[in-house]
């Protein structure tokens, strides 16, 4: 691993740390995001080449997909579109205008492009064109948060120690030693089968059964179940169904109405997306083998991220102090005292495959008998 590659992996790992930190900051509304993970992307605009910058963008999107378990679902396409388009837009802006534009300007432009790209891909892969109803709110919130983030980036670039260290190459990033986690090829194969089964399943009852089973499989695979994301998905799809009325009016609220046909469509879509998300979690849990140069740099990113998060847990003080300490410690290879980490339990492959067979049988029977 060359010095540049180590630098790329380290910065990408920092974006992963910041996106997990974003969950720790209390927010008045769940969809209100500051986009902290984009802070490093702003800070390296000037110093990273276009190629290195693009690799960081890809590593950030893929790494987030692996950490959150959404890598093999529609959510990954949405986040990839946002990250890559906004990153390239910011890089282009900074390259053409140089010192004539500040990080605040770049941040605003990046957030705008990111939100547009995410809305477009979201309407294509999951929500349908009615998601554009959310555009004014999303774009306005994005404008405000990107302004704050750009300001933070400017301040940090002038005051922080790490950006300078990264530029002046005084930082010797060491390669962390991490043991390789166990691979589960059978679970990966079974999860892929589940994805096919979910796509072919028809009917609300069948989809509900399949979703329940997929959550069961996710528990077997050892990935934590989270309730809020699927609930938000369900709620947003039901709200959006108001704008696509189709069929008998069940409940009328002024000029908007819940109709039977569109509610059935929304529920079916939500259940299908929820079970696809669970399948993605299982696939990530199976720990697919990463091959080649890209795989190696991704592994390095993930192990830097592992170090950063264990190191972060052992720091004290305010959030910014903790982040600064963590970064310096890991960058200087002063690894935190090894905290007795949670020993990961293995996946019960037999039980997982039995579950997969059940999912496939139920999904296929809906195709032939209903």
């Amino acid at each position, binding site marked *: 691993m060359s010095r540049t590659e180590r630098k790329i992996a380290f910065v990408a790992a920092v974006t992963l740390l910041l996106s997990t930190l974003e969950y720790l900051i209390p927010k008045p509304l769940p969809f209100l995001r500051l986009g902290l993970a984009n802070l490093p992307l702003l800070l390296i605009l000037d110093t990273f080449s276009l190629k290195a910058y693009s690799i960081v963008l890809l590593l950030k999107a893929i790494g987030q997909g692996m950490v959150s378990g959404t890598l093999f679902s529609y959510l990954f396409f949405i986040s990839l579109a946002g990250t890559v388009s906004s990153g390239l837009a910011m890089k282009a802006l900074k390259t053409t*205008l140089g*010192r*004539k*534009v*500040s990080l*605040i*300007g770049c941040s*605003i*432009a990046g957030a*705008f492009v990111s939100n547009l790209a995410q809305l477009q891909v979201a309407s294509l892969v999951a929500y349908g064109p009615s998601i*554009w*109803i959310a*555009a*004014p709110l999303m*774009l*306005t919130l994005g*404008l405000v948060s990107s*302004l704050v983030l750009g300001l933070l980036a400017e301040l940090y*670039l*002038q005051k922080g120690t790490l950006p300078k260290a990264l530029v002046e190459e005084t930082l010797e990033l060491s390669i962390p030693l991490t043991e390789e986690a166990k691979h589960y090829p059978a679970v990966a194969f079974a999860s892929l089968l589940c994805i096919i089964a979910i796509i072919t399943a028809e009917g609300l009852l069948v989809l509900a059964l399949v979703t329940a089973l997929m959550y069961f499989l996710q528990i077997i695979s050892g990935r934590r179940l989270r309730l809020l994301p699927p609930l938000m998905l369900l709620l947003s799809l039901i709200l959006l169904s108001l*704008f*696509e*009325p*189709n*069929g*008998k*009016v069940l409940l*009328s609220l002024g*000029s*908007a*109405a819940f*109709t039977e046909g569109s509610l059935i469509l929304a529920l079916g879509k939500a259940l299908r997306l929820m079970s696809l998300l669970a399948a993605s979690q299982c696939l990530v849990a199976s720990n697919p083998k990463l091959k080649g140069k890209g795989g190696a740099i991704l592994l390095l990113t993930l192990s830097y991220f592992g170090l950063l998060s264990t190191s972060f847990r052992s720091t004290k003080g305010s959030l910014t102090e903790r982040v600064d300490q963590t970064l310096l410690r890991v960058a200087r290879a002063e690894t935190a005292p090894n905290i007795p980490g949670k020993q990961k339990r293995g996946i019960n492959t037999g039980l997982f495959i039995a579950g997969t067979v059940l999912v496939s049988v139920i999904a296929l029977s809906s195709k032939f008998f209903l």
Partner: protein
Amino acid sequence: MKRPPVTLLTDIVILGLAIAAILWISGNTLSSGSGYLQVQTHDGTYRYALATDREIHVQGPLGDTHIIIEDGRAHIHDSACPTKSCTQQRPIFSARSWIACLPNQILLTIVGESEGDMEVDDVTN
């Protein structure tokens, strides 16, 4: 780090462009709701988005009424009534216009369409 004064100007231009784009997109998404077709029958109310082309069959006391939504407009294609006069009516797309098939107790209206988009002959209708 000192920055050239033009930096502030560029930032303000970018901010201005972003705000203008948001206003434009908001204007577009809010007015593009092309309204919904509401179908009242003897057994309930049905509603469909005008934006999607589709064919609808509803049941009245005399039998089936076949409604078609095409290019954001709706008309009755066929109905189980003796005169078939409802099939002669012009397709509707804006508020306050309607098509009725009285024998089969079917009424088509447009809802959720802003009044500003009405055409002159809609009012005189």
